[in-house]
């Protein structure tokens, strides 16, 4: 059951824009997804990621721009003619049909011979381990089984493109982890291009080959999870990724000195390449507690089990630090902290990343 046809599945969006009335939902979306890639659209709710997926699916028509699948333009093509299957957040199973008829629906719609339908339905059900449930109706299945049924319905037709709209968000935490792994394996075996919408950064980081970060109807960064996490393109991306997200501090950079409200830090080696007002970004994990460093005060310490989050005050700046061991902190306790200067991010006042070393 490999991808159908020539087995490609390259998706390209060119200057796609979408308005709902006066509200501009998407603007100037350019995107290229490679064949066989697991590509996530990540962003807060209302950022346009689901609209983008629906445009690729053909459920929404963009006002501007064009959508291509392989070399064919599909912007105005009906959803059924696109060779793209979709798994909905609500699964959208047909409640009056058995699981077998649900899975076979995309085949029946194009008049596949019955024997062929039976064979393909069984095969798809086996792939997601629900072959024993074929005679049930969706109402008689658990949430996890319904989700598998929706997956089987999507893979049964061997589509070129696999569209997933937050398919794991209705599962409980444990099942979500398990299904996440299975989903990735399924996509790898089928070799099909997958576009995955999620607001869960952990899901996007673990599943994706590459991802696009959406904010306010625009794509703000595209890259591998490592790139996006390691080199966020803007303060918006930096503040969105990571749990807790990166500390962003307004400061003034002057080579040897970094002035921030209520504190002046001097990096071990002078920072060159920029002078003036900046925003510096420090991941909570890049702050350490040392014998002699910058003096700070503990405001709150939260235990997470294998690690802890410590709220600190450095001068007038509030910071969050992640500590990989458990240690007791009293409220108001003075501590000495250090930054990992190699891993500090600099952004200009507009929020764009600065190449500063």
């Amino acid at each position: 059951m490999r991808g159908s046809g020539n087995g490609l599945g390259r998706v390209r969006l060119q200057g796609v824009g979408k308005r709902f009335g006066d509200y501009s939902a998407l603007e100037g979306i350019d995107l290229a997804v490679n064949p066989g890639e697991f590509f996530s659209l990540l962003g807060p709710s209302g950022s346009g990621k689901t609209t983008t997926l629906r445009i690729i699916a053909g459920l929404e028509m963009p006002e501007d721009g064009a959508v291509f699948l392989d070399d064919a333009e599909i912007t105005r093509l009906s959803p059924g003619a696109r060779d793209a299957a979709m798994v909905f957040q609500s699964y959208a199973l047909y409640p009056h049909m058995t699981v077998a008829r649900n899975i076979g629906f995309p085949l029946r719609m194009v008049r596949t011979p019955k024997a062929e339908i039976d064979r393909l339905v069984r095969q798809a059900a086996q792939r997601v381990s629900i072959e024993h449930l074929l005679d049930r109706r969706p109402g008689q299945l658990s949430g996890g089984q319904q989700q598998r049924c929706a997956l089987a319905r999507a893979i049964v037709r061997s589509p070129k493109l696999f569209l997933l709209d937050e398919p794991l968000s209705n599962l409980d935490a444990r099942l979500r982890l398990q299904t996440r792994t299975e989903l990735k394996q399924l996509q790898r075996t089928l070799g099909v291009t997958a576009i995955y919408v999620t607001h869960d950064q952990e899901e996007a980081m673990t599943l994706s080959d590459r991802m696009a970060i959406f904010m306010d109807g625009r794509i703000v960064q595209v890259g591998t999870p490592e790139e996006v996490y390691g080199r966020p393109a803007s303060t918006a991306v930096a503040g969105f990724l990571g749990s807790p997200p990166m500390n962003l501090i307004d400061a003034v950079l002057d080579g040897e000195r970094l002035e921030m409200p209520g504190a002046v830090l001097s990096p071990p080696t002078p920072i060159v390449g920029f002078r003036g007002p900046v925003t510096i970004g420090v991941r909570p994990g890049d702050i350490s507690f040392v014998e002699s460093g910058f003096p700070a005060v503990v405001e709150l310490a939260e235990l997470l089990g294998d690690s802890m989050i410590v709220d600190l005050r450095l001068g007038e700046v509030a910071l969050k630090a992640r500590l990989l061991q458990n240690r007791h902190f009293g409220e108001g306790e003075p501590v000495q902290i250090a930054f990992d200067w190699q891993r500090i991010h600099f952004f200009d006042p507009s929020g764009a990343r600065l190449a500063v070393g």
Partner: protein
Amino acid sequence: MAAMLRRVSGSALLIVFLICWSFPALWGAVTSFKTERDVLDYPPMSPFHPTLYNYRHILAGPTSIVPNLESSAILTVSTTLITLALAIPAAYALGRLRVPAKRPLGFYVLATQMLPPIGLVIPYFLIFSGAGLLNSYSGLIVVYVSFSLPFAIWLLVSYFEEIPREMEEAALIDRATRLKAMWHVVLPQARGGISVTVVFVFLNAWNEFLFAVVLGGRTVRPVTVAMFDFISLEQTQWGRVSAAALIAMAPVMLLGLLAQKHIVKGLTLGAVKGSGRQ
């Protein structure tokens, strides 16, 4: 204790309503098995010999109502089919598609229900006499459809709106055309709503009297009109009227019983996420 009291008083109330509702029907049923002499007997509860005389007379006699039952069936079935054929696509469009001026349209549909029908009898008579539609099936069917259509649309829209949009989008993605998506996915789930609509449209058309008596003339006489043949200046044949009424009630009651399952399911469908008809 309080809960039990509530239950008892609830049941008592139901029983009172049931008696009030069923008394005329039962009285009619008993009367239909009486001879005219027994009907007028006093006291009314005295024992009598049940007879099928009235039924024989109205089914096989010279004033048989069988042709009138046929008329009623033609009018009602045609009205129901035409109404559904028009109401389903209309309701779907109002409930689903981005129709411009959807709200005013919906209100307009409902507003047509606010006119008292009797005010329309004379205009209809004048229009129909001009158009040559008096004393014809097609004329009455037009009237019945025009009355039942707004109501049917209004009823069905709420059912269509309740079906998750995503389910239809899934069908479109699964390579169904809009029509196929409607046929295979939307309509099966609106089955409850469609059953309810059928019952109401059928009931209204079957029981209609006013327009039938004015516009149907001597040629199109449904059973509701024919029943009045047994009431004349000289005499009211209570036994025959009752027997005719009982026979006229039968199809509607039967339909109600058949559709009951669907009506209840139609009302509870969608109450539980992901639940389907078993």
